[in-house]
């Protein structure tokens, strides 16, 4: 597999990244590049390493081998010593860089003991240093965007799954991330609640220039918002291309098989 080439500086670059859990290899020398503002959707059978890519970018996992770069800088690693030798990044190096990255989880992971508003204002207040009024104003704007302006005092446990996920999207956006990771954000939802979440994400995609990396099985959504689809199989990119091409005229039999299996 040749290195993907994209014009201009890269938002994300994976340089021969390997991730192993025990003796299981989840990513196998992966090379990957994402341009600023690009929307990339990762598809493929479960266990093919898609989610691991997002988790490495969110620093929830560490690479076994290789280097992850964000904005042209090492991200999984940091330069150290006079020679600038790369060593695993420590918390001090990561903290300011991680703020550019946001993530929405399959299981929402809202803070159940806090109100909707407090969920969304927590990080702007205590990470970005906004005062209570500024943070609340920003949160209300975003809750309006996700259609939950009337729910700011509710507790997450009182909301439907779709509403919870929309709060989680607002919470992630409140940090004004440059890179947004969406990890199977509709997989835990009842079928009738999927559309409301995807509609919100379509709005976000259309209204911002945030770089988005998305793992999903919703192919209609992937087709609408993605610039590029990557088909994963066993820790490697099997094929990639614009959604029209990859979904309608895949080159590999494995891709055709996978697409049939999720329809």
């Amino acid at each position, binding site marked *: 597999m040749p290195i993907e080439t994209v014009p201009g500086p890269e938002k994300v670059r994976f340089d021969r990244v390997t991730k192993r859990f025990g003796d299981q290899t989840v990513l196998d020398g992966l090379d990957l590049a994402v341009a600023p503002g690009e929307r990339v959707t990762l598809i493929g059978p479960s266990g093919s390493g898609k989610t691991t890519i997002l988790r490495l970018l*969110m620093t*929830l996992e560490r690479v076994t081998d290789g280097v992850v770069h964000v904005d042209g800088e090492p991200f999984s690693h940091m330069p150290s010593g006079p020679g600038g030798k790369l060593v695993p990044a420590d918390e001090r190096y990561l*903290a300011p860089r991680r703020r550019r990255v946001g*993530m929405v989880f399959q299981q929402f*992971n809202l803070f159940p003991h806090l109100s909707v508003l407090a969920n969304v204002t*927590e990080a702007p207040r205590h*990470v970005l240093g906004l005062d209570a009024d500024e943070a609340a104003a920003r949160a209300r704007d975003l809750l309006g965007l996700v259609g939950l302006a009337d729910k700011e005092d509710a507790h997450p446990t009182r909301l439907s799954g779709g509403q919870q996920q929309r709060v989680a999207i607002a919470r*992630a956006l409140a940090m004004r991330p440059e890179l947004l990771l969406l990890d199977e954000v509709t997989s835990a939802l009842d079928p009738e609640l999927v559309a409301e979440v995807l509609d919100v994400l379509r709005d976000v995609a259309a209204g911002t220039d945030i770089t988005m990396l998305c793992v999903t099985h919703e192919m209609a959504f992937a087709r609408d918002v993605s610039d590029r689809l990557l088909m994963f199989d066993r820790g490697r990119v099997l094929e990639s291309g614009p959604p029209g091409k990859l979904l309608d005229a895949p080159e590999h039999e494995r891709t055709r098989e996978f697409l049939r299996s999720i329809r």
Partner: protein
Amino acid sequence: MWDMDAARAALPVVLSGFGVTLLATVLGFAVAVAAGLGIALLGRSRSRWIALPVGALASFVRSTPVMVQLFAAWVLVPGLDALALGVLVLGLHYATYLSEVYRAGIDAVPKGQWEACTALSLPRRRVWRAVVLPQAVRKVLPSLGNYAISMFKETPFLSVIAVDEMVHEANAFGSTHFAYLESFTLAAAVFLIASWPTSLLVRRLEARLAH
């Protein structure tokens, strides 16, 4: 046999001791709640030089009798007021139990909560204060209540270092008036009257938090 006059005379003495018992419980439990949290957090320290000794010391305190600790403290820390010493020893003894309670509560906070904190770049201190501990403590509130009741019933141990708590006072009254039956029965009754409704309250709290 039961002497009503002796009982009547014993009651105010016993009740005056109850004030000390209550004070020792409240102060001792405050020590236990704070120190227990400290032990739980230090025990999770990423530095082995902190986590291991703290864990070992806590196990040691937990597995030796509180009465022995009271005597030991009485000998080792002379000059400290008996009530203050008793409150510290009882509080620290219970702190070692409560640290385990906190630990269970912290372990019960789902991994997704920690991951959400990382995704929001929350600083570590804030993760504990705003996200993990509020949820952990809520989960273990009934256990904390049960330990408070249990500690309340163990305050009579403080009589061995001459704290004038309720059982100490009952014993003193019994020996001067030769009315042990009356004074101890009254002390037992006061314990029952105080802890029974409290345990019902804890059970209701438990039911409310369960759903």
